[in-house]
């Protein structure tokens, strides 16, 4: 539905997008996930036509909207002609217009009859549950309500593609979680192709069908939610997602497992004989690691040759329902342990523990920078 081919955009000397390629399928919600300044908003801006790339082609629904056509003719469709809706990061409701006039703004541009404009405005306000606020001005409604109106306004022109730039960040922090779910429900009902920009991992996980992790001015990895979180494809992605990542060497292939040496410690991963002898990067999600006082606990892994490594707790950071516990086992391992387990085990900093995880929870790939 949306296709970006080798799109490059620089601001002065700085390349914000570098040969960026992206393919968004019809009716999917794709999250562009990455840290601030990695080019997420610029990607939305070049798709919408608000910003012109230095080179590269952009297609929406098979139509070239930006770039060079076959005859080397430069194409740049105006934002309005691209049939996109855009919900911005900052509040962009027109402050001098009532809620209903904000929603009707795009409808009036389509030269519809007054009755049609009113009827469509009413149905959009109904869709986002804001009909009773039609006569209010934007400064008289809350942050979440404003974003609902922004969504309704962006849908008024019947866009084929919806671009959302961190729409939750403008909502009060305590209401963000419920607004995320609300927004997810709207998008599910709409069955629209959407690109959702965020730097928040859990938001990307909740909102999207697929996730594209952005970094270094390009897409680092794109895939299903589980693909990206379970099998990060690069050090950058693992680091950004807060996943443990280690450099090691695949030393030996056993019958069912691969033995990898990391800082002098042997780890067992699922079999991948083609990696033997290579420098590799090993990643493991903190959620897939258990802590135990008893070394034999890993035997519970239903036939899997689990890993059990001894280490000492060096740091504990408590969160709402879990804690990030860091264990030094020759290298630092971050784990995410429920608060109840910490209480049951009586864990505290300086305790000796066994770090236990299944061999198939390790993700191993070749270290391209260190082959």
């Amino acid at each position, binding site marked *: 539905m949306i296709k970006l081919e080798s799109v490059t955009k620089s601001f002065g000397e700085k390349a914000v997008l570098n040969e960026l390629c992206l393919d968004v399928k019809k009716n999917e919600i794709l999250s562009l996930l990455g840290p601030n300044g990695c080019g997420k908003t610029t990607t939305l801006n070049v798709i*919408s036509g*608000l910003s012109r790339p230095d080179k590269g082609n952009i297609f929406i629904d098979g139509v070239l909207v930006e770039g060079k056509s076959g005859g080397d003719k430069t194409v740049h469709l*105006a*934002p*309005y*002609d691209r049939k*996109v*809706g*855009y919900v*911005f*990061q*900052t509040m*962009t409701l*027109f*402050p*001098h217009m*009532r809620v209903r006039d904000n929603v009707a*703004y*795009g409808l009036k*541009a389509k030269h519809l009859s007054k009755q049609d404009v009113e009827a469509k405005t009413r149905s959009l306000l109904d869709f986002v549950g804001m009909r009773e606020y039609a*006569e*209010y*001005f934007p*400064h*008289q409604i809350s942050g979440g309500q404003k974003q609902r109106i922004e969504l309704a*306004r*962006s849908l*008024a*022109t019947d866009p084929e593609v919806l671009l959302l730039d961190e729409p939750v960040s403008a909502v009060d922090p305590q209401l963000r979680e419920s607004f995320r779910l609300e927004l997810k429900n709207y998008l599910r009902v709409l069955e629209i192709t959407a690109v959702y920009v965020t730097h928040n991992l859990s938001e990307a996980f909740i909102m999207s069908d697929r996730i594209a992790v952005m970094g270094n001015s390009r897409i680092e990895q794109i895939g299903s939610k589980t693909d990206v979180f379970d099998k990060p494809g690069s050090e950058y992605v693992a680091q950004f997602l807060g996943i443990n990542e280690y450099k090691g060497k695949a030393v030996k292939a056993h019958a069912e497992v691969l033995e990898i040496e990391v800082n002098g410690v042997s780890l067992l991963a699922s079999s991948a004989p083609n990696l033997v002898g290579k420098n590799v990067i090993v990643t493991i999600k903190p959620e897939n690691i258990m802590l135990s006082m008893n070394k034999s606990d890993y035997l519970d892994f239903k036939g899997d040759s689990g890993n059990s490594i001894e280490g000492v707790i060096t740091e504990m950071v408590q969160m709402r329902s879990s804690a990030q516990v860091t264990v030094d086992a020759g290298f630092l391992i971050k784990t995410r342990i429920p608060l109840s387990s910490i209480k049951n085990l009586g864990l505290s900093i300086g305790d000796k523990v066994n770090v236990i995880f299944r061999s198939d929870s390790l993700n191993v790939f070749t270290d391209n920078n260190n082959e």
Partner: protein
Amino acid sequence: MFVLFISLPILAVFLRLNPSQASSQLQNPQILNAIFLGLLTSVAATVASFIFAVPTAYVLATRKFPGKAVLDTLMDIPMVLPPAVAGVALLLAFAPRGLLGPLLNVLGLTLPGSTIAVVLAQMFVASPFVLRSAKSAFEQVNPDLINSAKILSDSRLRVFFTVTLPLCTRQILTGVMMTWARSMGEFGATLMFAGNLPGITQTMPLAIYMLLSENPFAATVLSAIMIIFSFSILIVVKLLQQKKYGGKND
């Protein structure tokens, strides 16, 4: 002490007024002419300033081009220039022997001594006020607001007139009011460029200057009228700055 320093001279003008004599001065044709001409020329200068300064301000606020900083500074010069210098400059540009003199002669226009010259002098001195206000207003509009309008509307003109301009209205109107006030009070450039001809170029400040020796009480009445005008304009400016969108619904 400072407040007293500012308010005492204003108070002095009104204390000197005798209501019955003041009302008789309002029949004085020289005063009436000066008020009429002052209002006519200042309104014309303000309208013309608005028409030319707002688009210029928009270009200066939203476009990048070589020499922009120089042009931006140039547009401010009339604000800091002594009015007498402004008068000389206008003469050198538009008088029959000035730069554009031959061209104006061909068109049959002789500006000095005409009411148009008064308007031009007022415009030259006062238009930077509306230009500054409009430029600052255009610069302050959230670019994402304009971008969201561009996505929803195929006409740039519609975006300008329905979003950009309404968002800047208050600040532009403030500039318009300041331009009007400055135009009405213009003295030096008008005297130098347009002259002091009753009924043709003699605006209120010029009339006050003339009357001060001939009929000091008439000068005081006219001064009081100008103070009332200025004060009213300042009140409007203050109200404009306080107004909120949809405030009446709060």
